């Protein structure tokens, strides 16, 4: 194993982490501010990817597709909040899980009805194809580097939004005491809609960016959703900072595990058995990580409250 390969794998881990952060940020924000468990978050990811693929196919421009993915996910998010989610805030978590699970089925079948069962085509934009040279003689794909850049920018933007703006102040107040900010005359309904749409837009952005790397198909959001839940549980539910650290941790541990564990077992078990044991263990690694962290810190690394 060379240093160049190690650096490349580390970047792959960070890129996966950044993508998970975009999903987890919305999920944790919605849970932190509104106390809502939203299983349908993966559907916004899918909607973003489909909007991007459809618009990119129609116009030939990935960038228009990207804008469409943000708009479509935010719009659908706002609509869903106003029609369905709003009725769930006062209910317990089981009702929320049931209702948002129903939304997953509705969105999946709706998308299948509109676009069919077969995956759509979406490629990365021409400007971002190719690779860049890294110190140490390795190369890294420009598009994945751009995803890392977008993720870092979103993390910075979210920090500024929450720490420095009036909207952010209201969001923090909403996390601390819902009834009180309502009593102080803040339009809490609009605030909730805005937060929900923001979370949905971030998921849509992640879906569009990743759609160009993977296949744009119905049901693409649910595997990512599971990882995003692992991230927010590790990071501490409700904490944006926790989501960022948790996402990078999960991304790097997962990638490095897939890369290093088989090699480790091959070194003393031989190739075929080592590969099998290493791959099996690598796929469990992030859940083992989650269990360990929860054993030490039961409410996650950066729990927002209590």
């Amino acid at each position, binding site marked *: *194993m*060379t240093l*160049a*390969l190690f650096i*490349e*794998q580390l970047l*792959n*881990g960070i*890129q*996966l982490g950044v993508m998970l952060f975009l999903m987890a940020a919305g999920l944790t924000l919605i849970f932190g501010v509104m106390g809502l468990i939203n299983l349908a978050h993966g559907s916004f990811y899918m909607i973003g990817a489909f909007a991007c693929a459809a618009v990119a196919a129609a116009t030939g421009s990935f960038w228009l597709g990207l804008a469409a993915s943000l708009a479509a996910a935010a719009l659908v998010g706002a609509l869903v909040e106003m029609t369905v989610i709003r009725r769930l805030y006062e209910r317990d978590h089981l009702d929320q899980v049931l209702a948002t699970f129903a939304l997953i089925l509705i969105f*999946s079948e709706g998308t*299948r009805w509109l676009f069919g*069962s*077969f*995956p*759509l*085509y979406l*490629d*990365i934009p021409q400007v971002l*194809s*190719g*690779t860049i040279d890294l110190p140490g003689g390795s*190369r890294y*794909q420009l*598009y*994945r580097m751009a995803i890392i850049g977008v993720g870092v920018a979103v993390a910075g933007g979210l920090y500024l939004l929450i720490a420095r703006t009036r909207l952010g102040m209201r969001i923090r107040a909403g996390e601390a005491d819902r009834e009180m900010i309502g009593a102080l005359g803040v339009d809490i309904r609009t605030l909730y809609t805005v937060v929900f749409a923001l979370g949905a837009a971030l998921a849509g952005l992640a879906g569009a960016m*990743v759609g*160009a*790397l*993977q*296949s*744009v*198909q*119905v*049901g*693409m959001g*649910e*595997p990512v959703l599971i990882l995003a839940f692992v991230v927010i549980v590790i990071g501490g539910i409700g904490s944006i900072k926790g989501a960022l650290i948790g996402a990078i941790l999960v991304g790097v541990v997962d*990638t490095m595990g*897939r*890369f290093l564990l*088989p090699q480790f077992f091959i070194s003393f078990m031989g*190739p*075929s058995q080592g*590969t*099998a044991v290493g*791959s*099996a263990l690598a*796929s469990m690694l992030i859940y083992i990580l989650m269990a360990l962290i929860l054993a030490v810190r039961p409410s996650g690394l950066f729990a927002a409250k209590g």
Partner: protein
Amino acid sequence: MKKLIAAGVVGLSLGISGLASAESIKVGMITTLSGGGAGLGVDVRDGFMLALKNAGNTEIEVVTEDDGQKPELAVQIADKMVQSEKVDLLTGIIWSNLAMAVVPGVVQQDILYLSPNAGPSALAGAMCNKNYFNVAWQNDNLHEAMGAYANDAGYKKAYILAPNYPAGKDALTGFKRYFKGDLAGETYTQLGQTDYAAEIAQIRASGADAIFFFLPGGMGIAFMKQYAQSDVGLPVLGPAFSFSQDILGAVGDAALGVKNSSQWSKDIDNAANKKFVESFQAEYGRLPSLYASQGYDTANLIIAAASKASVKDKDAFRAAVKEAEFESVRGDFRFGNNNHPIQDIYVREVVKEGDVLTNKIVGTAFEDHQDAYAAECKM
């Protein structure tokens, strides 16, 4: 008016009783119609239904249910279909891990199972059963063909890659059985994995001269796109599943020129295949994949067997299925001792016909090929 309705009712009831007197067969189809693997299940189902329509067959009633690619769900559906729906035979399962969960239990209850896709090695060897027929292939077959092709193409050091589930292990075993060169690396990925950056980085560092990968459905699209976007640039080989019609559109031009192995291709020259490809396009507005051809053959096999024996007479019907006297779209087809196909396997190349990416045959890898497990089967 009343008379008219009465006449209609009488007519209808006559019609129904008329149907009931003909021998009806109830087929339970458990297949994947949602999630990342839906394209495969949809093609198997559409192929199956098209065969019934082309044959003008109304005696076969099909009950279809979606297994969501989940083994536990597939087992529940199978129980329900056998116990409350009272189906005569079952078919439809795409994924080998689901087949391993469902098939052994079903065939124990003396229900016929005809596999239109999954062919795990365990069910071809020691666990073979007189009630289990595979109409597609034993899992290893197409990969064996690619192993043989890799020798002919002069590759000496291959990096091989498949998902960590029964068919993935069969795939790499099959490839290694015929490939004479060295392995630069062997990787099992997670089933349903969509990001292959870590694997592609390892391939680049491994010094391989070719890559063989088995990644069906969305996994293959993701891998091929990411591979093309990277600058590794080594030749890629795979079974037809990695380059089937259902995923070529989403992979795009990155797949052009890639060699893959298949027991079927749309350009196999026989009357049955010509009719299949034309009517499939007319009915569904897209080109069929090998999965669709397997669904189509499965239905035609059932129709042919039903014309010889009653489905209620298990022994006679089983014997009629085993004779396999139907016009397979892949040409010659017969069952071996373990109820798995003995058939030709071709090498195809991905080409562009107009704007559409598709496959065409460029050579024959094996003639009358039988799987490696047949000897272990005591039938």
